[in-house]
């Protein structure tokens, strides 16, 4: 079973992501900000990370940069799931090492398609 780390400061959003992914057979672990996400990623080998951008303590782009410096996460797919939709922000995400950028609110079927695609 693939393990996915969902990072978001909104409990509702984490619950929605977890519901959709678990309904498709994935194991989901949650973190409420980038700093906690980094700890969880270090403690558990995750196959995919889905993170929000605007969060307290550590934002999503910083989390991506930190994960890319960890040996185990150099090639693990990382998706940004955020309300930010500007091209400039997406460029920053790409430069930080993100695999993709999804804009909230997400369509569950589309999220599952993207997850399946990046986990292949």
């Amino acid at each position: 079973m693939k393990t996915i780390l969902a990072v978001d400061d909104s409990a509702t959003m984490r619950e929605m992501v977890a519901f959709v992914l678990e309904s498709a057979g994935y194991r989901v672990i949650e973190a409420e900000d980038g700093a906690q996400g980094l700890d969880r990623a270090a403690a558990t080998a995750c196959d995919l990370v889905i993170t929000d951008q605007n969060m307290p303590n550590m934002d999503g782009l910083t989390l991506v940069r930190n994960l890319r410096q960890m040996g185990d996460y150099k090639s693990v797919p990382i998706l940004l799931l955020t309300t930010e939709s500007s091209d400039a922000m997406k460029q920053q995400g790409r430069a930080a090492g993100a695999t993709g950028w999804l804009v909230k609110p997400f369509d569950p079927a589309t999220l599952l398609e993207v997850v399946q695609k990046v986990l292949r």
Partner: protein
Amino acid sequence: MTAGQGKGQGNSMNDKNNAGAPDAKDAAQAADLLVTVAETLNARLAVTAQELARSQAMLREASDELMTAFRGAADRIVAAQREDSADEAERAAEYGTVLDHLYRACQHLQSHDLVNQLIDAQKLRVDKMREKLGEAINLASPGGAQPVNAEQWIERSRAMLDCIVAGIRQIDDDPRGVRTDKKSAGSVDLF
């Protein structure tokens, strides 16, 4: 004591003492600035009010959709419980239908969450502005001695202005604000 009263007394002191043009000019500029700041503040708060109204409209729309989705799921579950079907294919199809309803609910619950965050951000902005306005009002009515000349009145007006301007800057300073863009919602970019 208000800034307007202060300005009036300051001018009257100028008239009485005939202190010269620079004081009167400063006082006039301060008064003009105060008006400009008040107008700017008014415009910012009008935008905030519009955003709150928009947020409420989005919330109502999402709520309606959410209720429809939930009712759909609930009806299906009740129907499935009544039927004593041993057919696995039929059961799987039923599960798929219910899941579809729940996915729709999930999408709209996200909208609820985002709108809640949007409203929270607006409330925070308004609260910050109100806090600064409160500070400015306190400056206009301190417990101690009142200004005795035009310079002191101008100094107080400027302190009030600084306070109001700081409040306006806080309204624009929103690094973690939620940005909702209906056109981009749900979009995917894979790098």
